[in-house]
């Protein structure tokens, strides 16, 4: 079993069905990635994803949730009360999905949290593939990566204003009558 607490900047960990999620301090994410690459053998960074948790938990979710085995009548889910999802520490989470190219395909998700305006150290020097992933995250979410050699917009036109994937950016498009989607 890998000792995730050896990673520099380790804060906490959480296991889930697909892979372990290890939370790292934002300022030390580059050291943690280097440690993961060199000492723990995660040769490849598969993906860098940022998620915006603005207004997370604002809408209560109640009622039964689909499960494979159906609802247990003796344990109804909410009994009419709102169940709010657990709160998140900051607005943005940036997840680095890592993969080890060996038997068993070990994967891990290193996650760090940032507020709007806080910058994250860039890991381009650890895995060059993160160049475009970080550019895309900057373009669509507005998270600035310190030390990135070429932090320009990638997918949107260069003169676009705003960061489209943020929760406070509207979906856009034109209004369609008699449609429930905004």
């Amino acid at each position, binding site marked *: 079993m890998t000792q995730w607490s050896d990673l520099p900047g380790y804060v906490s960990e959480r296991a889930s069905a697909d892979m372990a999620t290890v939370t790292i301090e934002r300022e030390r994410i580059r050291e943690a990635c280097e440690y993961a690459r060199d000492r723990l053998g995660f040769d490849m960074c598969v993906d860098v994803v940022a998620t915006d948790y603005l207004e997370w938990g604002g809408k209560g979710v109640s009622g039964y949730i689909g499960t494979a085995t159906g609802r247990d009548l003796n344990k109804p889910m909410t009994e009419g009360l709102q169940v709010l999802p657990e709160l998140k520490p900051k607005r943005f989470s940036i997840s680095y999905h890592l993969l080890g190219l060996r038997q068993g395909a070990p994967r891990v998700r290193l996650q760090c949290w940032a507020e709007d305006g806080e910058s994250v150290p860039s890991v381009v020097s650890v895995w060059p593939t993160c160049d475009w992933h970080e550019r895309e995250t900057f373009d669509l979410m507005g998270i600035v990566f310190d030390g990135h050699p070429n932090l320009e917009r990638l997918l*949107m*036109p260069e003169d676009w204003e705003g960061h*489209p994937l943020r929760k406070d*950016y509207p*979906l*856009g*498009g*034109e209004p*369609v009558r008699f449609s429930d*989607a905004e």
Partner: protein
Amino acid sequence: MADDEPKPVTRLRDYGLQSERLLWPTKGPSQFEESLGVDELERALGLTTLEKAVRWAQTKSMWPDTFGLACCAIEMMSIVSSRYDLARFGMEAFRSSPRQADLLIVSGRVAHKMAEPLRQIYDQMLEPKWVIAMGVCASSGGMFNNYTILQGVDRIVPVDIYIPFCPPRPEALMEGIIRLHEAHLAGIPPAYERNGVAT
């Protein structure tokens, strides 16, 4: 009695065309006429107007421009393949240069970043030129009603034919192309003469 009379032969002068023999009475029939037989000249010629002849020629070799954007481009490539053979319409020569192309088949979703190159390509084409909006994304934005997809390519270029479906079957695209041919043969002018760009 009516059956015994031979059908009256229409002569060129009935159409207002003066053959040179009328203007030069002493000239005999030309070699061309002799090889055909003088009396049969009218039966050996087809008469049409210049516009109709030009339209017929334009329809039979309307070369598309390689403007494949997304999924519809794959179906556009398959009409060139042997099952749906576009070469029987004279259109298998997809020109890469818009200067040599007549038809712009906008196949796929147009992002705002792509709208400017699309308009540049359209402007570079020489008249007469036609535009087919292939698929729902090009016709109206399709299933993508968001910040980045142009809601219908007719906002920036005048469109002649809209083809729905996502993606259109090759037969649907052929139907669109054939209707464009028929419309052009019937004399309908290309879209830029009829209407401008949609607002």
